């Protein structure tokens, strides 16, 4: 099953490699990983998407908690949460296709953020499945490049991951 693990960790050099190294050393898979500093500059927030049965996910969270640099973590899949991913996709636009691509972007609530005579860059956020659906909906031949951030997430309600 797919799990999103959100980790609050010390914003120190090497902290990221400790997490990445743990996954490769113990044979766990990482589907995606995003990391950035938080409002507290001494902390980084990492969002990691992984797959595994309950035993594996239990071990992953325990092993992550064992890392000295990890302050706290939660498995977002355990509770109601919201997840979003950013997509930027650069598409070729022949004159006759420009309108169709623009309206497709509208339908998916994407924004065109860069225009050249022959290309658009479309920005879109949403759950990963929505981004998958958009990419499936446009002509694969027209895609020059697609960049995805990997999902990040936050739990709903008053509960949260903080010090």
């Amino acid at each position, binding site marked *: 099953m797919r799990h999103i693990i959100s980790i609050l*960790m*010390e914003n120190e*050099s*090497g902290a990221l*490699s*400790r997490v990445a*190294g743990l996954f490769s*050393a113990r044979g766990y898979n990482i589907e995606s990983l995003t990391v950035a500093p938080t409002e507290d500059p001494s902390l980084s927030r990492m969002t990691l998407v992984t797959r595994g049965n309950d*035993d594996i996910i*239990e*071990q992953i969270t*325990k*092993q992550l*908690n*064992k890392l*000295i*640099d*990890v*302050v*706290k973590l939660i498995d977002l899949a355990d509770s109601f949460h919201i997840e979003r991913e950013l997509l930027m996709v650069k598409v070729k636009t022949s004159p006759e296709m420009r309108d169709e691509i623009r309206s497709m972007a509208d339908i998916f609530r994407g924004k065109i953020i860069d225009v050249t005579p022959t290309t658009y860059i479309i920005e879109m956020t949403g759950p990963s499945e929505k981004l998958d659906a958009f990419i499936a909906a446009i002509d694969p031949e027209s895609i020059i490049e697609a960049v995805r951030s990997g999902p990040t997430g936050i739990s709903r309600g008053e509960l949260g991951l903080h*010090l």
Partner: protein
Amino acid sequence: MELNGAQIVVQSLIDEGVEYIFGYPGGAVLHLYDAIFQQEELKHILVRHEQGATHAADGYARATGKPGVVLVTSGPGATNAITGIATAYLDSIPLVVISGQVSLPVIGSDAFQEVDMVGITRPCVKHNFLVKDVTKLAETIKKAFYVATTGRPGPVVIDIPKDITAPNIKVPYSYPDSVSIRSYNPVVTGHKGQIKKAVDLLLSAKRPIIYSGGGVVLGEASEQLIEFTRALGYPITNTLMGLGSYPATDNQYVGMLGMHGTYEANMAMHESDVIIAIGARFDDRVTGKLDLFCPHAKIIHIDIDPASISKTVRVAIPIVGDVKPVLEQMLELIKVSSIKIDANALADWWKQISEWQSINCLEFDRSSPLIKPQYVIEQLHEVTKGDAYVTSDVGQHQMWAAQYYKFNKPRRWINSGGLGTMGFGLPSAIGVKLAFPEADVACVTGEASIQMCIQELSTALQYKTPIKILNLNNRYMGMVRQWQEFSYESRYSHSYMDTIPEFVKLAEAYGHVGLRIDKPEEVRPTLEAAFAMKDRTVFIDIMTDRTENVYPMIEAGKGHHDMKLRVAIGTSTDRELA
């Protein structure tokens, strides 16, 4: 007080109470060695290879319970220390390893003797630090000792660039009394509700067994374990790492379990209905094939490391906590519990166990004209009155030492259980002897293992650490040969050496006493003579039966109930070997 970085390192170690530092100098640590030279409190032990430094510090730590401290230079000095660091990591031994690093401005430039020590050690340390600011040095050292010695202990590396220890940069020094790390709070006391549930289950067991490991040694909980076991009257088995935490000569002790455990211990595990695992981690050498492991048992597991619980074996009642307070709490509950142990069921269980014991699975041929390695260990036990510190290398001799030296006290058995590091025995014996100069220290080894760190014989002379080396010389890498005999139709691929040094001369060349024996009747008097030489390291080259195997054995893929026993006592010497 203003000190430079090198002085801060030395003073911090002194303030931490460090007695010995095991190391080897080199370019990146020259400032540190200069600071060591200018004081007398911290004693430096110069080894002959950095692997020896880590093992010696490790032996010191295992015997004393205090952290071992190591100092190595950058690059090859650091990489040579890796095997020893990993050895300590797998057995949860507290070490603080200080490695020199190239100066900050040249880090990352492939400078002379540069390796990314923090990167290389990451998978085999509990934590590591790269110090980038001399004002953080003392605090980092305090943190390293704190992390290494608390919770589940382990090695911590501090990588110190050369410019951080520069003599001309002085900063105010004070060593912190304590330190806290917001992301590190090891659990100590167990969950009360879980402990209650565990006691209830334990008291209603019909065929219980206590399975305890190295965590009892590390957690200084031997006394509590003994009291707990006696209060219950249940059988107890120890892992390789737990030997000595429960007295091996006690009636309730059924021997070591696992791959080379006793028949009775493994059968009792297999048939039990309730197992309490105390500071043990269900290692694959203990469990055998997981699908066949303890099919009838409900398992209680006490461990300080939550990640050890349900890692390989799902348990019914996990208790995360330090074994000592948890055992104390359980004992209190046992005393007041309304549940009475089913005395009839327990009597039947002991009857069954004594039937298993009656096959005498550790018996061996005592009439052989050749020296049986088991006999040597039995004699070692008698000559040292069961009170020696015994270090070992890895292989058959290690298993025989574990099976036949009846350890009655914790911290007496010093071996590399998790990583299985050949070369561990001699340097670790030096570390033990430094800690306990008056004690008998024996290194049980083989002619293959001893050659992996033989150079430390020189260290043993320099620091006058008179140890007794029992080299069980069967002219084979015995354990490899045994596996090849059982699983590869006796194709003994590279498990022997065409040339083996004359160990007597080698010992003498290093300034020690060398003895060689090849008859059973020589064993006892030679051991007595060796241990009588209180101030000399004695290397006894013992020519043993080449064909001897370690029994019992659970072969790969088998369960506890499926053991290979000695086929017919007295036949092993007749076999022809390639």
